[in-house]
Structure formats: C-alpha cells, structure tokens
C-alpha cells in the first residue's frame, strides 16, 4: 500500500524501521480527524440548509443548552484525544531508544553543510552512506547556529544544537537515495544545507568503506590530535601524569572534587575537553588549559572516538597505541 502511495500520491518513501510506525500513527490520526471533520461538515451544512430562514420574521424556539450533552462530548473528545496521545507517545519511545548494537557515526552541522565522520575515518560532506538492516546512531553537534537533521524517508528529525550533543538513530530498511534536509532555519543558505542519505546493501557498503578511508580510523585521527595538542603530556594512559587517564573513562561513573559523580558520556567528555574547569575529577587539580575555540567540533569528536576506543581496549594495558587501533576496529563494527 505504501509503495502504491509513493508512486501515485505525494508521500515520502518508507525506508526505515520506524517509518511504518510513524505512518500508522499518522493514518490513525487521518482517519479519526477526517471522520470528525466530515461529521461536523455534514451537520453544519445540513443545519444551514434544513433550518434556512424561511421568513424574515420568524423566531425559532430557544434552547439554552444541555449539561448532559456538554459533559458527554467533552469526555468523549478527551477520551479520543488520549488514544492519539498514547499512539504518538508509543512511536516516540521507539524513536528515542537506539538498539545496543548500533554503529556510531558523528555529524557536525555548520552554515551551510553537514559533515559526517565514520568510525573508520571516512568523512563525507552533505552525504551519508549507511548499510541497510543495521542500526546507526548519530551523535551530532553544531559549529555555529541551530540546525536540524531531517531524513523524511526515515521519519526522523533531531535539532542539532551548538554546545551540546544530540543523538538520533535509524535502521534503513530499503536501499536507495533519500533526501537529507536541514529543517531548522539557519541563515542565508538554509535551503542549500541539503544532501543525500545512501542506504546500501551491506556488501556494497563494505566496498564503499574500504574505498573511502584515507586518513586512518577516526580514533587514530583522535590519537594524532591527542599527541599534537599535547594531551599526552598530562593525560598519561597509565595514569602517571598530572591529569586522569582516558583509559576506561567512557561510560564510567566519574567522581568529582565537589563530591558528586557524573556519567562519562559523550557530552561529559566534550565539556571536559573544551571547558576543563566545569567538572574537575576528584584528586586532580584544575590546571588544564581551555580548549574552547582551539578545537573544531569534528576534532573533538575524533578525540572522543579515541577515548571511546580506549574503553574497548581495557585489557590491553601494555601497548596503548596498538590497543587503540584494535579498539577502533571493534568499535567500528
């Protein structure tokens, strides 16, 4: 039915695992609201004709109202609306919780382009290649103003806000080329901030991956930055430097010097890189320089991918650089 719709009337392709759920909720709303609208239209038109004024001098019998009817249609309306609320909320929950095995990718919005980084180090601008049948989780931020990542064929949209990470996930179900739009007005060339998502069969996607990576994996790019910006001088991976080691920090509970603990997700890592004095790890001094303005958002993402890869390499304590490379391999798949 959806295929027929796509070919014959204006309707977006249905190309992700959630698209069918969104369309089902949409269809439910269309059916209920159109029924209500038709009912009302029939009543209004019937009354306008049936009770059309026959004489300038008639005064119809007066009816003031009826409490039972009022409470009846108030309750019925709210009851009907609640079913819509529940349907919409159910679909929303599906959209919020990514599967555990999702591939991690990163997107940065800037006026007026989308920059995508793959864990394998592939970079794309205004294009996103994804495999069919595999969940993809995008961690996104903006370099300047608010943008919004919108793929109509997948029925997903998420604002991309400077200064924080937002995430979005989808599983493409049908190979094809789909529109990628910026949906939040972002300045002069807003309508030029568009691109395509290429959903590919897994084998084809693997071929694409091997043809694309020139600079090494994203975590190895992060490792280069770790050396280049001098992170390594303090954040010794064995924990011998004046700063805490990166190893195993991702997704751990970090105790802070103010007594609280924080869950070390991407947002925490980003903040600690850019604004180190915002949260200081217990037992360490706040001596790290501020990197806000020094690093681009895509560089921060590479560093975070490096830190995340180190988490996966925890057993391999002896040779950190080899471990990180291996980690990025496992992280990628």
């Amino acid at each position: 039915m959806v295929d027929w719709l796509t070919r014959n009337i204006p309707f977006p392709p249905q190309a992700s695992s959630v698209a069918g759920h969104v369309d089902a909720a949409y269809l439910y709303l269309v059916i209920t609201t159109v029924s209500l609208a038709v009912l009302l239209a029939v009543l209004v038109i019937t009354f306008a004709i049936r009770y059309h004024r026959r004489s300038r001098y008639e005064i119809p019998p007066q009816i003031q109202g009826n409490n039972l009817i009022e409470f009846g249609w108030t309750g019925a309306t709210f009851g009907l609306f609640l079913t819509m609320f529940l349907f919409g909320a159910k679909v929303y929950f599906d959209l919020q919780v990514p599967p555990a095995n999702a591939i991690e990718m990163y997107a940065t919005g800037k006026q007026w382009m989308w920059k995508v980084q793959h864990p394998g180090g592939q970079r794309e601008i205004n294009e996103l290649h994804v495999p069919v049948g595999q969940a993809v989780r995008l961690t996104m931020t903006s370099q300047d103003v608010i943008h919004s990542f919108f793929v109509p064929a997948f029925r997903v949209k998420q604002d991309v806000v400077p200064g924080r990470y937002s995430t979005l996930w989808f599983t493409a179900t049908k190979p094809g080329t789909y529109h990628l739009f910026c949906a939040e007005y972002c300045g002069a060339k807003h309508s030029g901030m568009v691109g395509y998502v290429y959903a590919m069969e897994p084998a084809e996607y693997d071929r694409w991956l091997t043809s694309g990576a020139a600079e090494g994996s994203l975590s190895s790019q992060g490792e280069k930055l770790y050396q280049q910006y001098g992170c390594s001088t303090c954040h010794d991976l064995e924990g011998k430097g004046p700063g805490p080691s990166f190893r195993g920090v991702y997704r751990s509970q970090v105790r802070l010097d103010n007594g609280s603990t924080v869950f070390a997700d991407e947002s925490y890592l980003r903040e600690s890189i850019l604004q180190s004095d915002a949260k200081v790890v217990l037992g360490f001094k706040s001596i790290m320089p501020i990197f806000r303005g020094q690093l681009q958002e895509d560089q921060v993402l590479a560093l975070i991918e490096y830190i995340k890869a180190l988490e996966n390499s925890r057993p391999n304590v002896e040779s950190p650089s080899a471990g990180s490379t291996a980690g990025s391999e496992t992280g990628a798949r």
Partner: protein
Amino acid sequence: MSAAAVHSPPNYLRAEQGIKSWLLTTDHKRIAWLYIAAITAFFFVGGFAAMLMRLELLTPQGDLVASDTYNKLFSMHGIIMVWFFLIPSIPTTLGNFLIPFMIGAKDLAFPKLNLASWYIFMLGGIVTLWAMLAGGVDTGWTFYTPFSSLYSTTNVIWAATGILISGFSSILTGLNFIVTVHTMRAPGMTWFRLPLFVWSHYTTSLILVLATPVLAITLALVAVERIFGVGFFDPKLGGDPVLFQHLFWFYSHPAVYIMILPGMGVVSELVATFSRRAVFGYTFVAFASVAIGVLGFLVWGHHMFVAGQSVYSALVFSVLSYAVAVPSAIKVFNWTATMFRGSVSWDTPMLYAIGFIGLFTGGGLTGLFLAALGVDVHVTETYFVVAHFHYIMVGGTVMAYLGGIHYWWPKMTGKMYPEGLARLSALIVFIGFNLTFFPQYLVGYWGMPRRYHVYPPEFQVLNVMSSAGASILGIGYLMPLFYLIWAAKYGRAATANPWPATGLEWKTPSPPSTHNFEETPIVLHDAYDFEALRPIIEEEHSHR
C-alpha cells in the same frame, strides 16, 4: 422629522471634524478606526511579502529573489502579520469599538490610555517597518538564538525594538479592557449576561497582560547578548540556545490564543444572531475561553519536541496539548448545536462564521497531529506546520475579523455593505484559502521543510497549486477593501438594528453618538434573549 430626532446628538463620526479631531480623539469608537487604518495597511504590507514568496516558490530554483532576500521576505511577513496584524486585529478594532457598548458603558475605563496605546503601537510599527525596509531582518519571526543574537548581520535590534515597543501597547490595551469589564458594566449586566465576545476578550486581555512582559524580557536579553556579548543564549559565551526557545514560546504559545480567542468571540455573536438562537451551552463556551487561557500557558514545550528536551517533559507537554484542544472542540460543537433548529440566514457574516468553523476545525484537528509526539518528529519544521497555523490564524482569525467587520459595519458606519459582492468575496476567500494551504499539508508530510527558498523538483506541483490559491486569496481580500470603503460613503443607510440582533450596541442609533448611550441602559435579559426581540420583529412585520 419629529422633534426628538432634531435634538438627538450628532453621531460620533460627525461630532467633530478635521484630522486633529481624529488624531487627538479619546473616543473608543474613533480609536478603533485609527487601528483599522493601521492594521489594514500592515496586513497588505505583510500580504505583499507573502505574494513575493509565493511567486518565488512557483519554481524549485531560486530565480526571482536571492536567498537572503527570500529570508527577509518571510521574516517580514511573519513579524508584520503576527505583531502588527493578528495580535491587535480583533481586540483593538472590534474590541475597542464594541466592549463599551456590549457592557453598557460610555467608553473604556481609561480613554486617554487607549489613545496612548495606539500611538505606542504606531511607534513600534514604524520602527519595525523601518528596520524591514532599511536593510531588512532575516531571523524569521521566531528570532531563534544564537542565529539572531550573534550570527545574523541584519537589523535584528531595530526589528526587536519595534516589537518590544508595540508590546507595551498590547499590555495597556489588555489592562484597559480588564478594568473596563470589571468596573463599568451597566446595572443588571452580570458576568453571565455578558456577550461571549466580552468573555473571550476578557480572557485575551489577561493573556496580553501576563504573557507580553515575557516577550519583552526575551527580546531584551537577545539585544543585550548582541550588543554587549553577555552570554545568555550563545554556548560560546556559556549560554544555552534552547533557553531562548523556552522563553519565546512561553510568550508565543499563549500569543496564539491572543490571536484566536477574540475570533471565537466574534463567531459566537455571528452564529447566535444569524441562527436567531441563544448560543447553545453559554456557560460552557464562556468557560472554554477561560480554560484555553489557562491551559495555553502550559503547552509551550510542544514547540520543542525535537529540540532535545527530556522524554518525560515531552510526554507532559503532549498530553497538556491534547487537553488545551478540548475547550476549542467544545466551542465548535456548541456553535454547531446553536444552528440546530435555528433560523439560519446566509448573510455574509454567517458565511464567514461557517467558513471559520470549517477552517478553524481543520487547523485544530491538524494540531492533534502535531501534539502526537512520534508524528510531530516527522512533521515539525515542515510545511505541515505552516499549513496548520495558517488554518488557525488566517482561516480562523482573519475569517472571524472579516465576518465581524461586515456584521458591525452598519453600526460603525451607518451604511450597509453590498450583500451580493460581499457573499462572492467570502466564497473567493474560502476557495482561495483552501487552495493555498491544503497542499501545504501534503508537501509537509512529504518532507518539504519550511523557510526553503530552493526545493527539490518533486514538490513543485503542490507549490504551484499553493501559489495559484494565494493569488485567488489576494483577490478575495482586496474586494472587501474596495467595496467596504465604497459602502461607507455610498451604501444604503442602515437602521439601528438591521439583522436584528440582541446586543446592547444594537439599541443605539447607527452610527451611535459620541456618548454611546444617552442614558445608562438597565439590563434585564441574558445575552442572547431573542424572545426580547419579538416586539421589534413584529413591529417591522406589521409595517409591511
């Protein structure tokens, strides 16, 4: 001519002559005319920007204007239409003219303040218009940060200053209405004898007074960030861009009800008069206005379902958004029930009222899609939203405004409008409106984002339909401009109560004298007591 007619005071239009007598008037009726002149001008300026946008969108390429010009056009359209047409539209014109009549008073509580409101409004309007014409502003009417506060290089400060100034006009008008309704009701005019027009304006006034200061604060914060670099909203300065959205929508969602509630008040009057029936469920319709006013303050988060708020706050805002839709539905049901077994005439104001019921229902029902979280993720920030709020604001408020202007035109000018031409233009507006905005629902669900200057070619057919509809709609709006002005001069003289209708305004001559009532009326009937009209109708009958 009887002696009484000779000695009756001159009507308010002729009481004083000359331009000065208008610009320095404190008569609420004349101030209403000052507002009508101003908002009509703003409406056609905003409409002109819309026409240019629709022309541009005829083709997928950006070929008529450049991107930044297009962005300035939709910003101008939104800012002018929201703050200088829709928000003042019905309250400052029909509200200003009619509230004192409807409660049996000689003027508003603070006539000088009423005139001051108009001057403040005009100052704000001129500042904003100047900002638009001298370089423009490209932030959209929503002024989202950090684009507006740091990245836009256009006249953001001046546009915001004009809006801020006009906000004070809104607050003072709201205050004036509240005090008037509380203190100046005629003897016997109890709260539950007030026409529903007054109830809806009373609620609107409360929202004006409570919500507008938040807008002023928000715009001031944007200006401080822009001028002094104090980080409220820009993350580079330690601010939070989403905080702006919370503040903005805390004003702007209630502002939606500022725009629609007065229209609902007008439609209640029209449906009653032209069905010759008391509004079904008067108390429910009255309290539905109050419920909308209260709940309207609790739903601002539904503009931010994809902005990164928590799942739980999204759930709360979703269910509250469904709750606020219930009182609107109650009103629609009650208007429909009022027509049942009534005596329904097809005069122009009733055609507009029926049009309002249809289009407002269309906008309200699609609001249910936007309140459904999982569906909103797909349709928010697309043309679906554009279509939705135009059904409410244009299909609702503008239809009600035009219906009200036709209905009270005999009272305001003392002349009847040409009925045939008026019916024709109502029909043209209805057809043009649907052709303009219905395709936008489809192209929105298809995925076309709003505020796009250039768009993929598959969206073209629907956009061409929309542009064609806009030109029909434009004709439908220009027609009343001409024939109403013509009618004010050359129209057939109107009787005191031509429809006839029940409100106290119809107990005065058309047009009324400066003092409205020569003697304070004593109210003995409910608002829509058509039985009380029987003597008038029977007398008219006996003269035939």
